[in-house]
């Protein structure tokens, strides 16, 4: 477990920025305590100072997950966001996509969101903008990337993909073993 290098931090923040924009600062500079990012087994964890101290006492091999995993670095040093970060990112999300109840399941199975399943979308969503996918009951379901801008979404064919799937809550079940 070590703090992120600058490059890593940059990568992480770039990714996070896609979803929550400048709200990252609310994660970094939290009023309720000191929170930090730590790298452990190529995974980035977001944890409080308190937890950091506690986790420091656990041997590295035995340490599964200090704090909340935000994602992991691939072998090519790209940062991949994981669902576990959803709880922290969802409240700060700038662009949201609501999925109709019918296609909720489809999304939770790891599929992209089609136009037919798109219930609601934040206006001015740009193409390839990171979005947080919500159910119509405003329960955050996962992350996605807008395949079309809001304006394009209006016109587009019902079967066209509107949001690319990035991560969804279904992963908690599907990839239980790999999630930390």
């Amino acid at each position, binding site marked *: 477990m070590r703090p992120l290098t600058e490059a890593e931090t940059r990568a992480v923040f770039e990714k996070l920025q896609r979803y929550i924009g400048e709200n990252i600062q609310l994660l970094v500079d939290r009023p309720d305590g000191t929170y930090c990012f730590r790298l452990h087994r190529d995974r980035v964890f977001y944890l409080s100072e308190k937890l950091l101290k506690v986790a420091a006492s656990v041997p590295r091999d035995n340490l599964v997950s200090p704090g909340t995993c935000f994602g992991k670095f691939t072998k090519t040093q790209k940062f991949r966001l994981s669902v576990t970060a959803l709880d922290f990112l969802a409240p700060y999300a700038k662009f949201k996509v609501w999925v109709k109840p019918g296609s909720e399941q489809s999304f939770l199975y790891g599929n992209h969101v089609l136009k037919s399943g798109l219930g609601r979308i934040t206006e001015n969503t740009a193409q390839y903008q990171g979005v947080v996918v919500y159910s119509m009951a405003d329960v955050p379901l996962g992350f996605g990337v807008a395949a079309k801008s809001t304006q394009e979404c*209006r016109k587009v064919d019902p079967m066209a993909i509107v949001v690319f799937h990035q991560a969804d809550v279904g992963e908690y079940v599907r990839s239980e073993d790999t999630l930390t």
Partner: protein
Amino acid sequence: MEVKHRAELQERFGEFGDVLDAEIITRKDDQGNPVKTFAYISVSISDAHLRKCMSILNKSKWKGGTLQIELAKESFLHRLTVEREEAKLQKEKPPRNDKTCLLDSLKKAGVVDFHMKAVPGTEVPDHKKWIVGKFGRVLPVLHLRSQQKNKIVKYDPSKYCHNLRKLEQDLTDVVPISELTWHLEGRDDSINKKRQGEFPVTKKPPKKLRQLGSEALNGAVVLPSVCQSPSKNASSSQLDQRSKSRSSEKSKMLPLSSLNSKISGRGLLSDKSNVSGVTAQNNMSVSDSDIDSEEEIRAMVKKEREIQKGESEETESDHLEIVGDNFELKYNSHWSLSNPNAIKKTIKGSYKDKETMECDNGYDSADTDEIIADSKTPDLNSKKTAILEDSKQVKVENKQILSNKKCDLVNDSLLKTCNLKEGKGTIKKSKIAALRNKAVNSTTKSNDSESSCSESEEEESEISSDYESMMQNCYRLDLTLDDLKALATENTGTPAEESDSAQSSSQHSVEENSKANVVNKPKLSKFLSGVKKCICPEDIVAAILAGEENADEESSKGQNNSCLKYQPFRGIGSLCEKELPKDSTGLKKTAGENLGLEACISYGGEKSSKGQPKNHPLSSLEDSSKKRQNMRCKQHRELSTEAASLAGESDQPISQPRLQGKNKNVKSLQEDQNSERGAVPSTDESEDESSDVDSNIAVSQKGVKRQLKSPKILSKKMKRDVSNENPECGTNKYENGKTKLLENKEFCLRATASEEPNTKKRQLQDNERRLAALEERQKERELQKKLIQGALSNLDSQPAGKHKHVIFNSDVESEAELDEMLKKDASLGNTREEVESAPKVSGKLFESSEDEQDDTDDERFKIKPQFEGKAGQKLLRLQSRFGTDERFRMDARFLESDSEEEAETNISKADEEEELAAEKKKNLQILGSLLNIDLEQPKTTKTATSAKKFKDINALRYDPTRQDHAVFEKKPSAPEKESKAKRKKKREENEKPPEVSKESYYHISADLKELFGSSKSKSEKNEEIPWDKDEAEDSNPPDHVGSNAAQESGGFKFCFFKDPEESGIKEEPYVLETIKPVKVPWQEDPRFQDSSSEGDDDEPEAPENEGDKEMFFPLPQTESTRFFFFSKDDERLREGPKLFCRSVDLSEEKDGWEDRRRLLLEECRKKHKDARRKVKAKQ
């Protein structure tokens, strides 16, 4: 089965008409097998033939399939050609028309000679700057600034007309329809494809497709005459056919197009075709499938419709909602957001409730203005209470309670208004009438209150009927109000003779009323779960009404009480009251009455408390009391006004219950009542005994004031308690009211009368109680100690046994110890003290004697410094290992210096924190660079931290006691250290003219007349001379004024011209020197500046002053004349004009000027030469 050739079709349809064209369309499936075939056939056919054809051939079996014939829609392309040709025709016509029209219009307008085809370049007659341009357009001649040069170029549009080109729609080279290349937007869409007739074969069921196809555009269309369509259509279709066959015929095309347009306008064909798609058109489709029956077709039509609808919906709005950034989620999963939101929601809800309640209230009380006025004021309170209650209670309950409250409040307010009105009426009219009124009112009141009670009960049971009941109640009250008004008028009409009867009636009614009130109040308190809350609105109302109601209420209460038990007494009181108010004016009357009543009641109270010894023979006392009460009434007035200002919290009658409530809150209920009871008689006694009314009043005033403040402070604390305890209070009151109605009432009234002393008493009591509590605590402590001692004394034998261990040592020691033992046995006290003092920590010696026990206990339980902290813990552990052995007791000496460790840990901690902070900072920096906010984060964090302790710079005050404010202090400059020369220089630099004005000011303050006189005498000659010379010459007697002024202002002491220290020695030349304008330094007296060095400078001052005197007057003179405003005979007015006139002869002046000029020139040349020389020399 398969129709392969047109010939076959021609054969088939040739019987009925001339088959011009046939187009066979075959749908094929994936493998290329034909699924469905249909054809468009254009036939020139007559109506009758068409009918015949349809009847014969339709649904006939042909080549193994059913033949279905329908009228085809008009082909899109055909339509397009038609339209285009139409457009062409129209295009050809209009220009000519336009021209003629224009000419006509011009002629009509009076323009006769307008050449339509003017040659470009001809000017438009009557308009010079307009010219005919290329296409006969009239254009303005422009004057433009050319770009390169600054010339203005005339731009004649006619000369540049070759630039222009007319953009005309060229219909001649229209792209032939067969080669149309344009396409619709969003062509890729499947829908659009469908529209265009391109069908993805595999996906779509063939049935639908055919229908769509029939709609869609396809080559030649034959419109055989249709039975369904009207004859017109048929003819048109026939025409169409012909036009198709001979496409060049335009003459026929026109009517056809018009007919078409008609048809479309009617929407007969087109509409039907659009909606149903089948009925209106003759789709001559030749298909072999057996499925095609009418029913199927209908089903298909339905499906198609659905599809169309769906499509339209899709295209119009795809159920896609687009929301803004500020879209709020219904459900918040976040830790930080969920709670406040919920709170907000609840708050909102409560507010809504309130609002609704308010609205309701307003609505309810919208009947009369007074009610509105009253109900508005309680609203404020209700808000507060609502807020308070919201936190405690559920919304629904809230609503109920609020509604209850509201209705109650309305009732109260109404009652009050009634009272007020009556009171006013009574004040104006006779007293008896008032009494009578009150009686009537009281009856009504009682009714009202009862009704309200009952209603409130109902509400308790049934929430649903709240509104109606309230409404009813209000309405009823309203009526009663009107009645009361009427009654009041009646009463005013009635003379004062009915006093006795009225009294009796009033007594009865008042009894009822009092009962009702008493019953009502506790109930209210019950319902409202807070006496305070129910009182507050009343208070405010009372405040608004300036205590008049108080008077009324008090009076009513007083009446109640008096009537109830002290009728004779009351009679006396009433008589007295009668006597009293006659003198005073209206308001005072009421007050006096009230207070008189109060007095009566108070006396009654006294009597009751004392066992009613003297009921009747108190007339004399009453008189005195009346006086007192009068005095007090004024006080009450004041207090009431104060109360009004204090939001009526201290209105006596109203604050009674509240005070009680408070008392109850502070103490227990019974205690409080007892104490109050105790207080009341005592105060009464004191009142009786004390002949000094004034002192009493003063005390009471103080007390009341205290009260005024105290309830506010208390109320906040109480509010919470009140809700819990008030029901009890209410019940208690209720009980009291029932059981000891009299006492209670007296009590209340007594309380009002003697609130002031009560408060004092209460304070005293509080103090006593506190002391008592302290004593009790001490006792408890002692008891505990005793218990502990008793417990420990049992263990006392142990130490002796333990001492055996020590006996191993030398004999001497043992002997000593034995001695000690003996001593202990003999005299426990001293030795044990010693022993105890020695083994402090061991704690094995326990004493039986109380005095020492304390010490040991104290020591035993004292915090030992050596066991503090981590190292201390370690030490303690060590010691515990050794047991209780004295020898291994750990002292402070054993204490390891853990400071190092601590420091280390601290350092590590600090390091960690620093690291984290640094990390954070770094992160924020990266973030800033990422987001291009230029390190916004640290700033924000700073602002965040600074926001916590925000300082308003404007509100910043210098606090000398604070160290950080030293920044604001000006460092005392050390003027002494600087050399005098420097100082002077500085002074010279710093000091600037403003003193001039000051000088003038002084003189103005002096006698103006003299100055005027003097200035006038001098002005003629003075003005032309420079002012400094003038000063030098002038040492005239009138100037003494100025000198005097200077002397008078000796404390001020400043010299206008020169530092006196410089010229301290030589005074005479000093005057002359200073005269020179160049040398005048325009500076202040240094003594004026540095007062610190005054001690040194004092001596030279005295002589200088004289010089100063001389210095001072001259300036003032010249100055004194110069007032801002011109006076009559002002010298300036005289001299001013002179400046404009030539004083000397022209020739003289000329000569003089020439001379001077010569001189000047010479001078100038000389200087120039010198300068040149100097430059050369330098070079």
